[in-house]
């Protein structure tokens, strides 16, 4: 699902050579393509939503079709799917895991609890959403969201990756991303 190119964008890739000009597709596109097609996710589930996440990876829905498979260590993961409610005790560990992931990293908040506290919003032991302490890219609504909904969120995340600048200079901060909300009108 590539976004259509504008003429000015194409013009920036033109490199003059004797007798005309050639288009050099930027390495940016290649990086975006690789990143969106190979999102390894962290093996990590918190509660009921995790069951639905496992279902999304299993026979019927098969996340491996999109190149997503679960890695056990945060060092090799690209996407963190926060699946389930986050207790106050668990939050620091999630933050540590997030910090241990190498850039570029993305977070999907799956379900009402990870998005905003869900049915436990009034409880004193449940954090009111993952975005209280880590940046979230996609909120997937539902209690629990169906696997199709999660896949929808993943496809939207792929679009997000396509629309951002993939390569930055060393030491330069990555540009901020605007989160996407799936469902829940």
């Amino acid at each position, binding site marked *: 699902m590539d976004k259509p190119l504008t003429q000015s964008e194409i013009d920036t890739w033109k490199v003059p050579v004797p007798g005309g000009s050639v288009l050099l597709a930027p390495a940016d596109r290649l990086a975006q*393509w*690789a990143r969106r097609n190979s999102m390894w996710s962290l093996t990590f589930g918190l509660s009921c939503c995790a069951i639905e996440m496992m279902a999304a990876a299993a026979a019927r829905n098969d996340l*491996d*079709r999109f*190149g997503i498979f679960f890695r056990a260590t945060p060092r090799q993961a690209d996407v963190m799917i926060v699946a389930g409610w986050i207790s106050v005790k668990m939050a620091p560990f999630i933050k540590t895991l997030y910090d241990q992931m190498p850039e570029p990293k993305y977070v999907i908040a799956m379900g009402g609890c990870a998005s905003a506290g869900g049915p436990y919003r009034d409880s004193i032991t449940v954090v009111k959403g993952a975005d209280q302490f880590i940046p979230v890219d996609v909120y997937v609504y539902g209690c629990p969201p169906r696997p199709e909904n999660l*896949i929808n969120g993943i496809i939207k995340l792929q679009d997000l990756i396509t629309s951002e600048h993939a390569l930055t200079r060393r030491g330069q901060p990555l540009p901020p991303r605007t989160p996407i909300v799936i469902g829940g009108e």
Partner: protein
Amino acid sequence: MTSGILRSRRPIRAAEVGLGISITVAIIAIASAIPHLPWQLLKPLTSFVARYPLLNALANAAMVANFVALQCLGFIWLERKFAGWMQARVGPMHVGWKGLLQTVADAVKLLLKEDIVPTDADKPLFALAPYLVFVPSLLTFMVLPFTSAWVGYDLPLGALFVLSISTTSILGVFAAGWGSNNKYSLLGGVRAIAQLLSYDVPLILVMLSVVMLSGTMSLTGIVTQQEKLWNIAAHPLLMIPAFLIFLICTLAEVNRAPFDLPEAESELVSGFHTEYSGMRFAFFFLAEFANNFFSAGLAVTLFFGGWLGAGLPAAVWFTLKTLCVIFLMMWIRWTLPRLRIDQMMSFCWKVLVPASMALICAAAIAGVSH
């Protein structure tokens, strides 16, 4: 839009499986031909290169590295497809035709990932470890005979070279486990050493029995002496158990289920490469798949007559036979659960080692009566 996503929900068709297998054969055949082709086309260059031993060696090394990298592309894709089929899934589908470019995407992404070195890590050791693991697995390919002509370097002591070189990768594994300064890495590294060292013993003994029967240690020599009959058919009573022991040992050597204890996710996060990200991790991955291909190729060389076969070109025969062994290994991997560490060790020392000792005695008797 969900209906479109879920369209692929149907039983696996035999045709699809066949298609997958033939694509992989094609990929591996092309991969094995590519390093070969330039030699025919660039005759003047080759004669120039052949004049200088150092250049020649470098060219050979480049060919081998080329082959290993290309073969991994096909192999990893096949493994994921196969895992999918075993679990009633379809595997990678959306990157390239039937997911063929999946591994390319993974590799590019790993290249562009942040390269993390933990603060407390032993930095030189941490940086060196992936290469210490990768280089031995690359070196073993130097003596693997794809055909009688295409073998990097036909050592007279090929079998010994293979065993000694592949054992040195243990050093890299331990460097990774120790250098990461992480308890899971260290435990994984220690387990890996225990496993690799113990399973090396029956492996060596089994290879010794094959060598005793063939009367040569050169891998090409072992194949040419199977001209009349493959080893496994020539001495079935001896060679079938030998092949089984060999298969079990190689499964343990390449850390595949049911012997994937060094990287048991449920206990050790990811074993010795827990702290590795990006390209350094890719080297571990590459080494694992290269080892896997190599041990399948070695099994073919020792027991199934290497490149020998009628009709098809020799390299294709070798690739086909190797693929069969690889399929056997994948089948085992995706079927069996993981063993416990004590079961694994006692199985090796109480069953495999005595059995391979008995095989050596039998091979000696068979060799004498020959």
